[in-house]
């Protein structure tokens, strides 16, 4: 084989393993799912009958789907807001390089490396109605125990808190990275001009941090839309459908109700939401 020919063929050969896995397990399923959502298919019989957009039209009348979509939107809004405020606060607090803040940073990051299942288990153990330490403390202080995971509103709160707890450390580190790109001279100049710490935060830190804030917002939003496991372990979507989110509804529609085509249509909706978010991310990133 000549040298030139070799140089032309070799890169394709090197790309084969990765591309094969990728095509078979990402691209093919993408297309498969899109087509499958236009059919009346099942796991046993395959595609079945072509029904066009019937699955999508049915989504408009599906109470459970709409509840899960509504829950997801609320969950995303509350989780992302809390994560933003908390991770930025921690970043400002822990940006300096003292021993204490370095160790604290590790501590706040640790929940990020715990699996979602473990996050769910730990929070359920703390908030268990009859065995949980929180209710034990409440009783000790003479208050009535709270049905944390069996009352809709409390369950929604615990689910949100557990999610925020598991994500905050990661975005804190992103914010610390962003803070370190702000030139220290700006603060020195502001101090000379007599600006208070609060003014420095609102006038210097926050405006110059905008690219990081956007990145964090988008990443946290996308990750929250994908939430599933923590809630599965904590409440299994209950009580009722009170904490059921989109991904869990897709799973249950496909595998518990054995309606994969209908679940595929819901997946396409989720995909479109995620794509729109990604699109806005790239647009905003370009403008900054």
């Amino acid at each position, binding site marked *: 084989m000549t040298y030139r020919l070799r140089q032309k063929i070799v890169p394709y050969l090197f790309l084969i393993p990765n591309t094969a896995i990728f095509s078979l397990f990402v691209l093919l399923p993408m297309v498969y*799912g899109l087509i499958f959502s236009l059919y009346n298919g099942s796991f046993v019989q395959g595609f079945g009958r072509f029904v066009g957009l019937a699955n999508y039209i049915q989504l408009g009348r599906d109470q459970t789907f709409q509840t899960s979509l509504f829950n997801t939107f609320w969950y995303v809004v509350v989780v992302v807001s809390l994560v933003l405020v908390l991770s930025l606060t921690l970043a400002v607090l822990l940006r300096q390089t003292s021993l204490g803040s370095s160790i604290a940073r590790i501590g706040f990051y*640790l929940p990020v490396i715990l699996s979602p299942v473990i996050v769910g*288990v730990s929070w359920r153990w703390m908030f268990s109605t009859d065995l949980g330490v929180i209710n034990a403390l409440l009783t000790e202080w003479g208050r009535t125990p709270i049905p944390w995971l069996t009352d809709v509103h409390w369950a929604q709160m615990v689910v949100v808190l557990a999610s925020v707890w598991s994500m905050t450390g990661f975005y804190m580190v992103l914010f610390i990275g962003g803070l370190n790109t702000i030139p*220290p001279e700006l603060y020195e100049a502001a101090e000379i001009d007599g600006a208070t710490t609060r003014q420095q935060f609102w006038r210097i830190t926050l405006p110059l941090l905008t690219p990081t804030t956007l990145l964090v917002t988008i990443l946290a939003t996308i990750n929250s839309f994908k939430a599933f496991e923590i809630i599965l372990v904590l409440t299994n979507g209950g009580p009722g459908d009170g904490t059921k989110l989109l991904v869990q509804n897709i799973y249950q529609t496909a595998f518990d109700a054995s309606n994969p085509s209908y*679940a595929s249509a819901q997946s396409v909706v989720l995909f479109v939401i995620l794509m729109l978010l990604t699109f806005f991310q790239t647009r905003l990133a370009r403008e900054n």
Partner: protein
Amino acid sequence: MTQSKLIVGKPRPGRHKEHSLWFDILVLVLAFAFLIPVFWVILSSFKTTGELFVFPPSLLPKEPTTSNYAAALTTGNFARYAWNSLFVATMSTLLALFTNSLAAFALAKYRFVGRQLLFLLTLATIMIPLQVIMVPIFLVLKNLGLIDSLWGIIIPPAATPTGVFLLRQYMLSIPDEILEAARMDGASEWDIYSRIILPLSVPALATLAIFSFTWRWNDFIWPFIVLTSEQKATLQLALARLMGQFGVDWSTLLAATVITLLPMMIIFLVLQRYFLNNLTAGGVKG
């Protein structure tokens, strides 16, 4: 006043220096409080079954015991699940290192038709999460006979776009002259990959290995969709199944939880700089 301030000119990051000790104590207490859910699980896992149900619970175990761990590993079958998790995480990481580094090498060091397109495609798929293709991937794996096989959760996630991206960026910094010199000496392209590129990329490969292992060890959705039989379950799947049962057996479950989180905790504490610095890699879970 401004004049004197200018002359004294406090050095950065001296803005917070004056309350350093109290500040350190404060943030450490906050971080400790933040981790209470983890500490509480670990403390509880050493309590006897009887003590777990005593009200009000004591902070420390009164008679610390490891019997919960023995129960989890023997009767609870958690030794089996731990082996499955270890096997899956290790094999999937090795496979990812191999396929991703080959692809990254091609994208970083060769000029060929479609290179730009393939690279952009790789980046675009970072945004396709498993949650979106959950249903069709089950159908694909079913047709391939990979349902309820550990290989069904080892192979599919191996082509991580994050890994390709990370390795490619690193390989771009390897000078082309080294590769050219090797070619002059008659080295084959495979030799160049295995004897030059791989050894020079060890830092990036290590980063990918750490993240890949963490992702696969913590993975729940893949096993949840693919694995059906009890013997094949990974730790995460077994834990979630125990939680889903009516009447949770907390004593075994808490010990099993600690067994599951311990490897990650050790990896994290030993290699924390990888996690706290390499944000491009950790940014999107693979």
